[in-house]
């Protein structure tokens, strides 16, 4: 956090300690590389492949990978798995990204207010965090998904609603420790408003842990979306997502195992990459490791 501030000079930021530490973290670099490749594939892949992700061809059902131009085979409706995989990646990655943004905003807001105000407001907010954490996330997610129409935007919202608590906890602890520092006192003596001190003075100093938590939240959100879509309550077909591609895969496990293996591998690669990047950022930004 302080490292980030101190190194954020106008020039040569790429030679700062933070960047050097991150680039010497091999796993983090691997994660960045894999996510870049995966994103590029999802953006450009569908345009380069000969088949559309929604094109049904019943003569080509259950083609195993590497059949003709079907590089990753076809599904029970004869749709090209590769095309679907990349289109699904767009959905899954976008949902996860926006869920991260939303949950980080909720978590940061709750954490900053709870940490700065303290007292009964802080206690009430943090007990609410504990309350949300008491529900197994999938139970809450599924109940909400069943209650509300699961459009991609709604899936994003409910994933965010069930995953902001970690960020809130981290930010609250960070703000509580920063609250008594001299620059905050100085701000108070200058007569700055509470909101100004909270969001303009304290928050920038708590960015390190927030960035790390946000990165790990992307990983978490990809998994949550995959879980509820796999169970049939997330992203609805025909729009493909990595999770709903796996929905019917179990019944064809014997005859068409690639239907299960390929999307699951994509999820694992994406989630692992974000976890690696988060780990690298934690080292680079000097964030204390409570989660281990």
């Amino acid at each position, binding site marked *: 956090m302080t490292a980030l501030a101190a190194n954020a000079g106008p020039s040569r930021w790429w030679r700062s300690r933070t960047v050097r530490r991150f680039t010497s973290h091999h796993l983090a670099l691997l994660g960045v590389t894999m996510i870049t490749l995966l994103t590029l594939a999802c953006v450009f892949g569908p345009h380069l492949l000969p088949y559309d992700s929604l094109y049904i061809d019943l003569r080509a059902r259950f083609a195993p990978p590497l059949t003709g131009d079907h590089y990753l085979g076809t599904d029970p409706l004869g749709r090209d798995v590769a095309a679907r995989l990349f289109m699904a990646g767009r959905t899954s990655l976008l949902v996860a990204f926006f869920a991260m943004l939303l949950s980080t905003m909720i978590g940061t807001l709750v954490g900053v207010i709870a940490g700065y105000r303290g007292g009964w407001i802080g206690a009430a907010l943090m007990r609410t965090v504990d309350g949300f*954490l008491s*529900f197994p996330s999938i*139970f809450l997610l*599924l109940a909400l998904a069943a*209650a509300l129409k699961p459009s991609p935007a709604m899936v994003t919202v409910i994933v965010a609603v069930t995953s902001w608590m970690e960020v809130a906890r981290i930010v609250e602890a960070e703000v509580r420790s920063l609250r008594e520092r001299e620059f905050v006192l100085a701000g108070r003596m200058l007569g700055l408003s509470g909101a100004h001190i909270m969001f303009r003075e304290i928050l920038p100093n708590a960015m390190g842990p927030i960035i790390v938590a946000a990165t790990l939240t992307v990983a978490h959100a990809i998994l949550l979306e995959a879980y509820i879509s796999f169970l049939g309550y997330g992203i609805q077909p025909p729009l493909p997502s990595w999770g709903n591609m796996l929905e019917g895969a*179990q019944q064809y*496990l014997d005859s068409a195992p690639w239907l*299960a293996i390929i999307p699951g591998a994509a999820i694992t690669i994406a989630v692992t990459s974000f976890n690696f990047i988060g780990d690298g950022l934690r080292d680079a930004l000097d964030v204390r490791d409570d989660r281990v």
Partner: protein
Amino acid sequence: MRGFLLNRLSQSLILLLIVSVIGFLVLNLLPGGPLAQFGLDPSMTQDDLERLKEQLGLNRPLLIQYFDWAWRLLQGDWGHSFRDGAPVLAVIGRHVPATLLLMGTSTAIAIAIGTWIGIRGATHRYSLFDYMATVGAMVALSIPTFWFGLVGIYIFSLQLGWLPAGNMYTIGDGSVLNYLHHLIMPSIVLSLVHVAIWSRYMRSATLDAIGQDFVKTARAKGLSERRVIMKHVVGNALLPMITLAGVQLPSILTGALVTETVFTWPGMGRLFLDSLGYSDYPVVMGLLMFSAILVILGNLIADIAVAIVDPRIRLG
């Protein structure tokens, strides 16, 4: 100890209150609210629904409704299943043992393997083993549980034919061995993520303990390194693990739901999904509240257990 108990108990009660408010809000979010089950019935007219609302007091202010609902929850009146009219608590009760069996077995596996990996990683810090364990844990945390289950079924059931692909037992064969045979794969699948978590925590707890003064004292006394590690280091490192077991409960329940779905295991998670499919909201709500209460209770028990073992917490 008494002060600690009272303090901790009141915290749990407050948490229970908050959890019930969240649960109540979700109940009112469900389509049709608490009357959802009747709204789907074609023989119910709008007038009937209005009358029912009146009779059940659903047109009263939300706050009053909440207290009414919470009071009935406390009395054990959790409503009746839409599917067969059985009391919700009885329906849930029938599915709890299967889930507890699955969770218990997989937690035992996770603790045994995770603890071993963690201690070995800490005592052989920065070795190849430690590095592999660190990277392995991060990958294990990234694998979707259901996918791991599917890959397991593909390899061990469909290709090798060693393990059954699902269910808790073969119909007509009630032997313990048969149960165990069915238990192996789901419990290993469910334990993967927790092996990773336990090994990471155990590694750092062991490293913490190694740096303590009493370990230096033990070494200075001339105890063998093995004895120092096993008795002084591991003994102290295991303490926070009790708390961790409580903290991990929600994630184990989440994993159990997914694992039960893949392996058609007749537990609470499977019941939850089936009930959602039938729009059986009383059972859905019941399970939501039941799982949260289970988590709060688990954490309470874990904290009390730590306090009993550790005088620093009990007295401090």
